[in-house]
């Protein structure tokens, strides 16, 4: 059972390994994807896009009170 699992794992690993190794234009695309994801999550999300309600309030009750205040004042 364990051998079967390891064999399957080995096949999947080499499937992806060979795939990535044999890429041509794909290497450039992966670089773009990684840079893009870094800008999105490590820069934009972290520094510019905090969740407004989650960062201001601790509980859902506080959040709902705040939104009701916003919607009714």
């Amino acid at each position, binding site marked *: 059972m364990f051998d079967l699992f390891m064999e399957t794992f080995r096949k999947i690993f080499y499937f992806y390994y060979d*795939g990535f190794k044999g890429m041509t*234009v794909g290497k450039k*695309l992966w670089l773009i994807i990684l840079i893009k994801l870094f800008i999105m999550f490590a820069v934009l999300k972290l520094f510019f896009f*905090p969740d*407004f*309600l989650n960062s201001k309030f601790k509980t859902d009750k506080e959040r709902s009170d705040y939104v*009701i205040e916003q919607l009714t004042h």
Partner: protein
Amino acid sequence: MLDHFDYTLVNWSRAQFALTAMYHWLFVPLTLGLGFIIAFMETIYVKTKNPEWKKITKFWMTIFGINFAIGVATGIILEFEFGTNWSNYSWFVGDIFGAPLAIEGIMAFFLESTFIAVMFFGWNKVSPKYHLLSTWLVAFGANLSALWILVANGWMQFPAGMHFNPDTARNEMINFWEVLFSPVAINKFLHTITSSYVLASVFVVGISAWYLLKKRETSFAIKSMVVAGVFGLLASIFTAFSGDTSARLVAQKQPMKFAAFEGLYNGSSGAPLMAFGIVSNEKDSSQNYLPDVKLKIEVPNLLSYMAYLDPNAFVPGINDLINGNLQQGIMSATEKIERGKVARVALRELKDAKKKGDTVQYASLKKKFNDPIFQNNYFKYFGYGFLNDTNSLVPNVPLTFYSFHIMVAFGFYFIFLFIVLLRYIYKGTLVQKRKFLRLLLFTLPLPYIASQAGWIVAEVGRQPWVIQDYLPTVAAVSQINASAVQITFWLFFVVFTALLIAEIKIMTTQIKLGPKEGGNEHV
């Protein structure tokens, strides 16, 4: 009532959302359509075993891969914006968006990311039939992802299957199937994906035309055009029909949007369809919107027929919807605003009663919110309670009208184009038709314009609402600093423009290289 809203913040938040959504939508439709075109090409290869079809499939797969890689995750930005810029909206929407977006995330991740690897890395490693299955699953997976996003958008245009909880100010989903199978959502999905198929078909046809103009890869180009031409023709005809149904639904559910994109100021029985005209937001001395459309070309009774399948039906215009029309049972905007204010006051009183511990008053108001009569007569107009000026209910008529007419005109042009293309291919004269090939090449940007115009109709036309009748856009924004939104607007502009330039550069390099014998082993 709207005095406390910071309009600079609202406008920049809207501009930022529009910018990111429009850039995102430059990548998505090609992925949706090209996925199926590749699947058809590979099916022919598996059936015929002709290696040329393998080469064709691999070339377009490379183009698909470039577009997919550059476009992937650009939509996540929109979710960032929901939490930061549109927190009142995100809270008010409640779990309605949560379910479709979570399903979309899981589907996109598992279906697309698993089978896309087989599609690109699996040539010669898995059986041809399993590879073909993976290609089809990638195409279906991408389209299923689009379904969930469009269901969420459809709910904003026509809220259904939910109940408003006044204690939390959130909408709670009470019927998932009503949300999923809302006629607006389903029709929006069908119209959007089929228009994406048209875009991808025009793209394939345009690039193939370039090869023919350069006298390169003739057999490859014509074979690609056959698949894209047939697919594009069927998709463009279906898009026209789904567009017709879509307009009919808008007439019922969002009559102001319908009146705006049809340029109908004063309603009438047997309303004519305006094929062309110059519209404006001008008013006369009695503050009615001017019905005097210049240079108009009309088809009598057609609008009534298209909206209600009855050539003599009454179609309300902008002035009817603002001033009301008792004869036709249309409530005035002033009355809706009054009713909306009653609902807002009730919500305020419920909150105050809860805060003060006035259990009797609280129980009475809670009962009121659960009463169908209050729901149908007052809470249904909750969003109107934020407005003071009835004119704020009218969207930008010229922008909506022209965007709609550009979309429709291009839609019919594509049908005509695909018919002519297939005729020339059938007669075997396409290669000699140099002017037509140039036309095909220069048509390439037009479906992008039509697609963006369609979204302008959908989103600008529904203003002032972010959720139809329940929440106006001005009340949906977070109380954050407008300058922060301006900074991120320009950041996005730079990042997305860089991505677009990268896409065009990498794609054009690959197109110039052309399909190689046996294709690239991997992207």
